[in-house]
């Protein structure tokens, strides 16, 4: 029996309760959030880059749009220029918040060998990583909120299509956050198979930016690209919630699809982790 205070025996618990586990994961997430906030100088510059991107894209769309000020989307809806610009504004900020975050956390830990430390802890590894990424996103959220009014100045804004649409957007956005966490964690697990993850991530970002709809909304995509995007989970993190907000898509199918992706991606994550664990070779004997 391990005794710290003589005479009072203790034994470590056989397993943690659900509540204890939640407290543990929450704690890990908070630590990452705080760590990230220490490096906020960097974030400010990147935010300025986000604003410039909004500005540029708004001008490009304006230059592309016909003089009439509206254009037809793929289903025949007419999209006003102001709507398109509002979409661009929100999409860039939302995509920055959800998808631009560190996919570098796991590769860095694997390269340094500090992933061993993560594996010593009594928590599931993929879940732990999800919470770490969530902490990082939480750290970025206040910056995104501050940037939003400036982005609106640079681009444009629009009220939600209806009060219901606004509420559904909030729900959809929450699910989008979860899906983004799942995808980012999943993709960064490639670090367990190769050390060349940086190059892979650059190419991944290219694909993700397009298929998520952050550059071109699905309603203006050529058919083949749109169909491809609809079958991938990326569009549920950027395009889908905004389409609900702007009244270009019905909320129920979107939210339903997001929930399906949440479950599916979590399953894939656990399957990938099971295989990764077999491959774990921690660097630096």
């Amino acid at each position: 029996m391990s005794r710290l205070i003589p005479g009072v025996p203790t034994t470590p618990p056989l397993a943690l309760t659900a509540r204890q586990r939640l407290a543990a994961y929450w704690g890990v997430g908070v630590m990452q959030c705080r760590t990230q906030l220490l490096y906020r100088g960097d974030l400010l510059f990147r935010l300025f880059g986000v604003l410039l991107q909004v500005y540029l894209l708004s001008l490009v769309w304006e230059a592309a749009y016909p003089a009439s000020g509206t254009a037809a989307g793929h289903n025949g809806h007419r999209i006003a220029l102001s709507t398109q610009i509002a979409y661009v504004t929100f999409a860039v900020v939302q995509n920055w918040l959800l998808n631009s975050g560190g996919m570098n956390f796991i590769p860095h830990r694997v390269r340094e060998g500090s992933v061993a430390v993560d594996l010593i802890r009594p928590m599931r590894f993929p879940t732990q990583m999800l919470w770490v990424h969530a902490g990082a996103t939480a750290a970025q959220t206040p910056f995104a909120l501050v940037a939003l009014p400036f982005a609106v100045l640079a681009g444009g804004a629009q009220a939600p299509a209806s009060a219901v649409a606004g509420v559904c957007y909030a729900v959809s956005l929450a699910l989008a956050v979860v899906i983004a966490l799942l995808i980012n964690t999943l993709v960064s697990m490639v670090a367990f198979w190769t050390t060349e993850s940086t190059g892979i991530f650059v190419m991944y970002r290219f694909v993700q930016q397009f298929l998520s709809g952050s550059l071109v909304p699905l309603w203006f995509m050529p058919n083949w690209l749109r169909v491809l995007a609809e079958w991938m989970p990326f569009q549920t993190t950027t395009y889908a919630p905004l389409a609900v907000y702007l009244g270009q898509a019905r909320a129920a199918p979107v939210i339903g699809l997001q929930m399906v992706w949440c479950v599916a991606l979590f399953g894939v994550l656990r399957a990938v982790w099971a295989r990764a664990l077999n491959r774990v070779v921690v660097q630096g004997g």
Partner: protein
Amino acid sequence: MSWYKEADRTVTAANPIPSHRAYRLLVGAALRAQLQYRGNLLLTLASGIAYQSVGLAFVSVVVARFGSIGGWSLSQIAFLYGMRVTAHGMWTVPASELNWLDMTIRTGEFDRYLVRPAGPLLQLLCRRVYLATFGDLATGVIILAVAAPSAGMSMAPGPLAYLVLALVGGAMVEGAFQLGVASLSFRMVSNQSLRLLIASIMNNFGGYPLHIFPNVTRILLCFVLPVAFVAYLPATVLLDRTGDLSVAPWLAWGSPLAGPVLLFLAYLGWRRQIHHYTSTGT
């Protein structure tokens, strides 16, 4: 390879190795080092191409739907984009190591350059050959080659010569700003964010025809951070679109000259900052 074994003469501070020979020696060493490093060349090149192509892919989707941007066809915008990426590649292939200046100052590596009998800037640029930059250059050249005919550029020797001059000039404009920002490293601890910001502006705004921007922005992009001189102005000349310009045509015709002038000024600034750095101590 030794600094001091120049077979025909002894090297001293008063009689240093001429720059061109030093350059060859340094680059040779760096290249050999890189080829020994078992990095994934193909993957690095591919990722470089992917990074540079995002903007163009975006433009092609928009134009596929809307026909043109600001009156410029896809080929013309691609041509402009290709010019910008090529100019960017022409600068980064030799000079990408400039990005590491603040790190070398911090670790003391730069101080070693100051002690050796060759220019510190040269040594910094040759410390490593970053093969990904060739990907950038290759991407740009390919885009140019594909877009030029359908964009309406004449393939006569005159315009081609002008194109080459414009690309070199454009590379120098970008270089001038990168060098200028790098020089700040001698004063500030880390200028990485500023450098990334400038690079990002040049990357993103440089590939679009200037007239889609409102007046104030146009002036900023012409005269404050002269992105326009990198690709847009010479492109209007080559594509015979000087009618779009809101500035005088002679400015567009003479745009390749901006590069050497700006780079020279930046180099003077660099020298001044180094002088300040060495005289006040680390």
